[in-house]
């Protein structure tokens, strides 16, 4: 057994390398810098490129460019950097470019509190795309989960051809804890489906029927062709047809726009990752995510010690919302407690509609961790 003391940030970097990420461009920002630093230290030794960009806009654009060339790429930032990156995140959505962005939250608004944890960016991240396109979001709560979910984020991003956000926070990212190397799965992420030239020729393919964004049915993921490959890439962030040609409101262009959402929605039941601890006969369900899941689990354990029947649902795949799993966890439940480190109850506002009329209570706080006691009080109230 090999035990090490590692931060969540270090484990995201390690997970990325394990997943096959070979390109990282970063810009320093507390509390995400640990990911950048670990990639700078370790990626060259893995034959990859890690470099400093002059700002967050360049950092994410370099990553998207690298991904278009066919390389798995990641960047990491916090709320203020995310604000700068959203233009290009939308570009990655529109051009169906795989990309993983670790968003290590800190207290906002604006530059807020650099060394203070928070879970205030969950909707800022999800609703960053004009038109309301689903951005898959995975949220780890431990160093081990940072590793596992980073690999999963790459798999989703590769298979769906879309950017995926790893939503961490200062407390998950910068807290060091025990990691058992033997529990780290030695797997890489799955890779994007590549377009194959069946004729085997070396000529530059300018297909009439098959384009950069081709699909037969709207849910299908187009096969990827790298810039520099043998098939002509026609990539664009503007509304386009399946060939990548700029078009205004043609039926095919509208179909492509619909496809961008449908390819994710159609698979939403496969994109579920939760930490479920359902107790028979429980009348109360505690839900949480990220760092607050840890306090929630402790509160659930303590509640059970006191004879209260209570279930726990830690949500790791925040988006697409695991609505079916949430509904299934509500059998016999009359009260739902949702704990998260922001004042309005951001994620609660999203999942409330899936709670089938159960009473939904929020446990919310900023400035310090939500404690097991805070949640226990809500469970007992």
């Amino acid at each position, binding site marked *: 057994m090999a035990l090490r003391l590692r931060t969540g940030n270090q484990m995201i970097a390690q997970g990325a390398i394990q997943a096959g990420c070979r390109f990282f461009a970063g810009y320093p920002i507390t509390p995400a810098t640990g990911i950048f630093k670990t990639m700078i*230290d370790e990626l060259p030794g893995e034959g990859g490129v890690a470099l400093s960009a002059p700002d967050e806009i360049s950092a994410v654009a370099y990553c998207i*460019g690298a991904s278009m060339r066919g390389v798995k790429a990641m960047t990491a930032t916090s709320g203020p950097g995310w604000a700068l990156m959203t233009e290009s995140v939308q570009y990655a959505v529109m051009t169906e470019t795989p990309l993983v962005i670790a968003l290590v939250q800190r207290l906002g608004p604006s530059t807020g509190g650099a060394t203070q944890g928070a879970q205030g960016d969950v909707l800022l991240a999800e609703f960053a795309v004009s038109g309301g396109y689903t951005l898959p979001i995975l949220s780890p709560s431990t160093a081990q989960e940072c590793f596992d979910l980073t690999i999963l984020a790459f798999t989703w991003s590769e298979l769906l051809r879309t950017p995926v956000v790893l939503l961490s926070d200062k407390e998950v990212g910068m807290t060091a804890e025990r990691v058992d190397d033997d529990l780290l799965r030695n797997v890489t992420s799955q890779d994007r489906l590549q377009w194959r030239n069946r004729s085997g020729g070396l000529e530059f393919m300018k297909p009439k029927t098959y384009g950069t964004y081709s699909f037969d049915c709207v849910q299908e993921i187009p096969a990827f062709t790298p810039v520099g490959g043998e098939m002509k890439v026609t990539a664009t962030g503007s509304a386009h047809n399946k060939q990548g040609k700029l078009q205004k409101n043609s039926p095919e262009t509208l179909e492509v726009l619909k496809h961008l959402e449908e390819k994710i929605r159609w698979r939403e039941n496969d994109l579920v990752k939760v930490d479920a601890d359902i107790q028979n006969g429980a009348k109360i369900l505690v839900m949480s995510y990220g760092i607050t899941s840890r306090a929630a689990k402790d509160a659930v354990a303590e509640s059970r010690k006191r004879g209260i029947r209570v279930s726990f649902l830690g949500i790791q795949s925040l988006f697409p919302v695991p609505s079916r799993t949430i509904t299934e966890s509500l059998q016999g439940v009359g009260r739902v407690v949702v704990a998260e480190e922001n004042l309005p109850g951001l994620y609660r506002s999203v999942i409330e509609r899936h709670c089938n009329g159960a009473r939904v209570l929020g446990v919310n706080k900023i400035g310090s961790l939500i404690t097991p006691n805070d949640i226990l009080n809500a469970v007992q109230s």
Partner: protein
Amino acid sequence: MTTESRTITKALAPIASYFVKDVKFPFCKGCGHTNILRRLNEALVELQLSSRDVALVTDIGCIGLSDGLFEAVHTVHTTHGRSTAFATGIALADSVLADRRLKIIVLIGDGGAMIGLQHLVHAAMLNVDVTVLVCNNFVYGMTGGQSSSFTPEEFLTSTTPKGNIVPPADLCEILRHSGAPFVARTLATDRELPSILRQAIDFLGFAVVEILELCTEFAVPANELTGKKLLEEAEKNRWKLGILESRADRALFVDRYERTNGAKELSHPEQSSVRRTKSAVVRRAVSIVVAGSAGEGVQSASSLLCQAALSANLYVTQKNDNPVTQGSGFSLSEIWLSPRPVGFTGIEKPDFILVSSEDGLRELGLQGWMDRLSPKTRMYLDDTVDPTMVDDRIVRVPLRSTFGPRSATLGGLALMASEQNIVDPKMLVALAADRYGERTASGLTDGLKRLSAGGGAG
């Protein structure tokens, strides 16, 4: 990968044109863009680059419509001003991680050049194999002829109706001083344009060509602009024309990167996994708050304690806190050591507190820790820290004078570990020797001896 060469493959069959069949230019009559694109196509035809090895990257504005006109190259249409950044990403991946085949050509206008100035500057600094053609017609044509950052003084545009009062920036000079190894400025109508384009594309490294041209829809009618007047404008602004820079002595990023990172390094060099020991350790979850001054090794001493606990197969978490600066003010660690996995990483009622400096005590007060002590909490305080504080739970130790300011926290943790049977202090000393060297370790051992000879903690 050979240095200073691009493995460009020539086209298999001769390419007569890189345009789409029956190309129709979407630009206004007389617009310089049409001429520039025709000359670009001719340069490509002359160089006969293999289609798969050329990527044309564009963004927003009239010139951003160019990608749709080219068929025999990859095209990537991006967001306003960002095309150089996306191109840089493609070039970095292509040169370091792939087979270094691609020639990337960026087409932007004067608007995009300024929004994306940092991308141009950084691409020049990196020296990636990207050729940028800046089509400067002094206005935003697509949105109705507004002024740009490169509009000459006194120019009439829709946003400078009384004449531009802001002197234009000199893009070529900015990029030359950013290290761009190939810089040229010319006119869309210049006879030298084809030759300059060919040289810029053929150049191995970052090349920029600023092409001055006429926007016939806006700049021309408002300013009675002609080709002759354009030349006069260039002269007036001291915009030198021709190839302003062409140097072969600047290494590409890929070459510098490979030179520096050539040898495959061992991963995780900073921390090997821990040695297992069977020393006496806590059998229940223990919480410790460590507080001191930033720059005095508070968090790294805490991490050594965690390492020592790991070697005894305990679960640990170490949650750190400090002001936004790194080397001033307080530094604080909250530690859990437990035989079982740790959930909540915060501490509500600490079992132990160690304070190695006044900064640490002040911060504990500000954060309300002093109201969260239990009757069983033991506090190890340096003896210089607020001597007026009296409490049965306090253990006063001359940490700073015994171990020195930079080892006071480590010494305090070793003492606490030993007296409270938290972890084996010998393990802590061994880990200190690994991380800081034998001198620190023997200082630690000596200090602990002196403290126990002097009656230890009082």
